[in-house]
């Protein structure tokens, strides 16, 4: 008995050491080109006795170069600036106070109109204050009706919900089968997007081949994680709280591995700008349509597998009661291994699609949606796969619709949080959860 225990400990040690070596080596191996920084226009650095005002002049078609702006201070002294190639301008000031920024309409291209040609900016030391003009081409009609806006946002919400669902179904299954809240799940989403960038953008593979590779690699990382880390830790009897902190450590390490590899910039999976389709009031990129299609198909397949296949039934059994499932002859470890593999593959797919739909991914993109993932999973009921699906759709819609319904855009994530807190107060087990999980 004793020797068995020692062997086990060693196995844990070796497994963990292997994973950690892999983590430490990853940045050394990932010699992706770290890309030149974008050309910086003349820079204004605010300081203790310097204030900056800055802005970008652009229409919905793109930035405008060589637009003249005059900045007038309280005493009436004028300064003139011109926008750069990228439409950017800035000005350093050595006095605080109100400044009037006026755009010279004569220097704008003929087909461009500006709604209001002068604005007042309160300059303050130590900060850069923005001065933004509402510049449009004449063809642009800004008068979309509220209904159209609602329809467009609903479509966006469903799109976000489907992408969240891909990741949260896995998160929920892992929680259901092992009891673990995996805080590193979001990093798997980022990994999917970044691998997409590596395969498609860097290596020049086609999107479909690259996408399949992403899912395969991500699934493998799931299998590998469970093999070298989670399974040994489960066998060792490490508590769930302790495991949760391990996932936090893993999440921190992975985030910085990503930042090490690609830097803090946003990278794109495809270089070309996506094509756009218009259906009545809804404008959507073709990639988004395909992404939504793929999500629906994959989610349906997962749902079918869970309900109809042998292994799916086994998964639900383990999720319901691991001890009983184990006693009735289900190989719990195998089921959990499979859940990890599938969950990470799904998260990777979600990340790839997210990167395509939102036009880029960053080292901490996953962490930004982790909160939505957890809100979705908790809303639907921790541990229930279909609850996660439902919760994701609700959270997606809430996030996209709340700005239309009057919530300031910056606070749209806060709405998701508010709903989560209210729901926990009245129905802590979530929409589809069973009360016994809560206590």
């Amino acid at each position, binding site marked *: 008995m004793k020797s068995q225990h020692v062997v086990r400990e060693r196995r844990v040690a070796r497994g963990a050491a292997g994973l950690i070596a892999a983590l430490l080596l990853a940045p050394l191996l990932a010699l992706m080109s770290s890309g030149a920084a974008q050309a910086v226009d003349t820079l204004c650095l605010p300081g203790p006795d310097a204030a900056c005002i800055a802005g970008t002049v652009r229409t919905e078609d793109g930035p405008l170069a060589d637009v003249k702006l005059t900045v007038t201070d309280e005493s009436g002294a004028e300064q003139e600036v011109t926008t750069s190639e990228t439409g950017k301008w800035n000005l350093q000031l050595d006095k605080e106070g109100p400044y009037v920024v006026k755009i010279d309409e004569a220097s704008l291209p003929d087909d461009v109109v500006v709604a209001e040609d002068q604005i007042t900016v309160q300059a303050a030391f130590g900060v850069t204050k923005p001065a933004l003009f509402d510049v449009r081409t004449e063809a642009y009609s800004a008068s979309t009706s509220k209904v159209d806006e609602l329809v467009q946002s609903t479509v966006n919400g469903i799109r976000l919900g489907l992408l969240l669902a891909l990741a949260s179904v896995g998160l929920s299954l892992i929680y259901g089968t092992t009891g673990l809240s995996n805080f590193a799940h979001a990093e798997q989403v980022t990994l999917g997007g970044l691998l997409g960038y590596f395969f498609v953008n860097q290596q020049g593979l086609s999107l479909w081949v690259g996408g399949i590779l992403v899912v395969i690699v991500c699934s493998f990382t799931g299998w590998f994680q469970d093999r070298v880390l989670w399974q040994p830790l489960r066998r060792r009897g490490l508590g769930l709280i302790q495991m949760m902190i391990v996932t936090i*450590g893993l999440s*921190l390490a992975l985030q910085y591995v990503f930042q090490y590899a690609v830097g803090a910039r946003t990278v794109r999976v495809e270089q070309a700008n996506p094509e756009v389709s218009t259906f009545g009031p809804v404008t959507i990129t073709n990639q988004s349509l395909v992404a939504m299609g793929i999500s629906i198909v994959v989610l349906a397949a997962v749902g079918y597998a869970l309900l109809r296949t042998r292994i799916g039934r086994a998964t639900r059994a383990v999720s319901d009661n691991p001890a009983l499932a184990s006693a009735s002859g289900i190989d719990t470890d195998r089921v959990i291994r499979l859940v990890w593999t599938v969950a990470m593959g799904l998260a990777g797919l979600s990340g790839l699609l997210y990167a395509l739909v939102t036009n880029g991914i960053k080292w901490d993109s996953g962490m930004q949606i982790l909160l939505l993932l957890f809100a979705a999973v908790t809303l639907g009921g921790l541990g229930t796969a279909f609850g996660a699906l439902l919760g994701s759709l609700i959270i997606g819609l809430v996030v996209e619709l709340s700005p239309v319904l009057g919530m300031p855009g910056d606070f749209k994530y806060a709405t998701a949080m508010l709903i989560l807190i209210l729901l926990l107060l009245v129905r802590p087990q979530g929409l589809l959860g069973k009360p016994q999980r809560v206590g």
Partner: protein
Amino acid sequence: MDTIQFILNGMMREALSPQTAAVAIAVIGLNIHFGFTGLINIGQSAFMLLGAYGFAISVWHGLPMVVGLALGFGAAFVFALILGAPTLKLRGDYLAIVTISAAEIIRYVGRSALLTDFTGSAQGIPGSQYRDPFTSLSFFGGGQFTLLPFNYTDVADGAAWVRIIGWVLVVACAVVLIQRLRRGHAFAGLGQAALMGALIIVGIFLLFFLFPVPNQRTGVNGWWVRFIAWGLVLLCTLVVYLLVRSPWGRLLRGIREDEDAIRSLGKNVFSIKMQALIIGGLFGALGGIVYVLPASVQPDSMGRSLTFFCYTALLLGGAATIFGPLLGSILFFAARIGIKYTAAAYVPDSIMNNQQTEQFSYIVVGVALMLIVIFRPQGILGNKRELRFNV
């Protein structure tokens, strides 16, 4: 040799920096949550940020410093109530999920352009806007610090033998401290406690004087902030020591080990957990206020990474111990800078450029956190039996 000297200086500077002290205070609060009560709060950075905002915004807008402190603590208090009310009756991971999400929300709201007049949005509030009332309290004068016959510059820039003796004394202090702590009866009586306190104070003053002169003028009136920050750390440590020895403190441990047992004694578990969450959160707010004094209020510098650092420091030093947070924070920050500088000095730029050494140090932190939890959950000072609790 110069490189090694440079690395060691950097580590020492980081270990003594007021921001390390600030994180130590936040970790002391987290220790009440996680170590003593078993609450998994993954949003300690939000408590810090709220404390910092409450303080900085009110002083910036002309309110007296006392009001600022009260508002900072008040914000953390309300935050703890909002987070605790829906989750403390549920399983432990609900609190974890809600706190990590809420911490992010606080950061987003702080970054929001709508609140530029209050929070300074993503650029934050520069320290010069709220620091003055605090610095004007200083009785240290400008950097040239003389205590009794000892002038700061005399010792730190003086003869080599003075410094060597000083360092030997510091090491001796540390060794005695650690040995007494390990024996476990460091605080058996009032005399023992006084001796411990005296050793700590002597050690800190020695470090004060031995610290290389060129670093003294970091930040605004660096030594004043340091003095207050480390003084607060010791005060908080004392408060926690008294708290966890009280009947209330025993209840906390009881809840951690077996909630139902405490409930069967007729105690209101929910209310005690809420008290623990609030008190730990107030320590977090105090940590946040100290954190921004020598710097500026930057929502992005107080995000989830900071919470993760708190956890690493806490587990490194030893959760559910009195001195664990202090030791853990100092070791953690010194080690991180050590790793970073060593990587910068000895790994060629082609493999790891300057920015990447920073990221490398964070990768090591994450891996270290995993390793500590797996192989030594009790950290340096802790007791393994105390950390077997579960959700």
